């Protein structure tokens, strides 16, 4: 039985295997819990395998998958709104002693779009076009959003220096 017809060229599997930690990382930043983030990524790939044929041929497979992952993470987040790793009251995920609460608070205070652009840029290293595709916004909006996020965080960051 052919079970992976929706991934005929193995591209989804290759993407999964090469970038799973990054998917989980971004999802964790959005969801606020590593385990649930991992579940969200798994859910997202199940959906991607099922609906691979819906991906537009002119669109990047990776950006399309990121979109599904981000949406799965958002969905998970919505059901656990009280948690975020960037919540100023939460400890650093790795117990980092220098993790400044002020910056975490500043990040937590960004809009969802700003945070998501930030996460995809910093954690996933996606370019603007891919971020635009993943978040279903225009490329110009990505740049503007990232600029605004940086501007919002700058005073706090400079206060650390």
């Amino acid at each position, binding site marked *: 039985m052919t*079970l992976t*017809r929706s991934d005929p060229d193995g591209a989804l599997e290759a993407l999964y295997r090469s970038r799973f930690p990054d998917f989980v990382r971004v999802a964790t*930043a959005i969801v606020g819990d590593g385990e649930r983030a991992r579940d969200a990524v798994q859910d997202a790939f199940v959906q991607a*395998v099922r609906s691979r044929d819906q991906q537009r041929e002119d669109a990047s497979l990776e950006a399309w998958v990121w979109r599904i992952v981000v949406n799965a993470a958002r969905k998970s987040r919505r059901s656990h709104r009280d948690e975020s790793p960037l919540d100023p009251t939460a400890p*650093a995920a790795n117990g*980092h002693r220098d993790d400044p609460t002020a910056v975490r608070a500043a990040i937590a205070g960004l809009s969802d779009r700003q945070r998501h652009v930030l996460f995809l840029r910093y954690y996933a290293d996606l370019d603007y076009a891919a971020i635009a595709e993943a978040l279903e916004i225009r490329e110009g909006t990505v740049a503007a959003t990232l600029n605004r996020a940086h501007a919002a965080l700058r005073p706090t960051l400079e206060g650390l220096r």
Partner: protein
Amino acid sequence: MNDRDPRLTELLDAAVPRIADDGDWAAVIGRASTASRPRLVWRRLAPALAVAAAVAVFAVLLVSTDDGRETVPATPVETIPAPPPTPAPTVGETLVKENGCLSCHLLGGNGAEGPGPDLSIEGRRGRGTEWQIKHLKDPRSLVPGSTMPAFTGFTDEEYEQIATYLESLGVSTSSATFSILDRPRVPADTAPANLVPTLPRSPGGDPIIDETRLALEREGVRYFVAPATDGSVCVLAASQGTVQVSCREREVLARANGWMILTDAHQVTIIPDGFDLVRIETSTGTTEVPIVNNVLVVTTPPATSPGGPAIVTGPAGTVELTIPPSAGSAPPATPPPAGSMTTVPAPPPPAPGP
């Protein structure tokens, strides 16, 4: 792209470090292969599905042959048992569900409402497996103007499996699960007054809900459906003759005459408390069908259903409807087993290809 703040990079790295994790691709594939898709259209198609799933609080049904012969003779009455186990999906089913067919088609209430037609009764359209395979490979060669993409990546065996599966849809076994436990019950002494005024009227005077009618016609089934006051569904379907439902053999609640043709013929309805008889009148006579345990099932006449019509009554629960493969094939020679009923297939409607 040099647009990242080094300090922020460091802080974000600290907040959510990258953790080595290979994931579990096998689990992804396993779930993608077995889990069902979300039921996207249940709410929108609820009235149609209510009919398909045979849920109705009150029904009037006429079954009549074109030659006007008596259509519903005395029939066996059986108790409906617990539902049978769901059979494992076939390879063809898996291929259909895993290759995006449900992005454009409905199938058993799952999938998208369009642009393709509902596949749930694809097997009743009289296409044949050869047609299905050719259609999969080049839809527009058979359905001019079709927007369905060509599916060219399957092996010959897989094409056969998909075609066989599609041809089985609507003609093999389907299960209808319903429950009335959480529905408001209509007290026996108030049922007639509650039900009769609830039938909405079209400008022509017939009880019709266009949206529901259209949804049902897409499936090649012509019913009229109207809501009852308790939120459930009233199904009226008729062609020639009249239908009367009696409450304790006294009151006529509804009459259907000359409405659209009920092409095939199965109807399972849940009748509220207080109704104990359905009387079906045709030009050649009258048949009275008892209602037992609030469930009434009526099928088409023996002329088109050599296995014999079945009127199955039983408690609320699950009813399995078994429809013979096609008009030309051998019907069941024996009465249907408990928990199933035999109906005739609908004539192939002029529906477009999937």
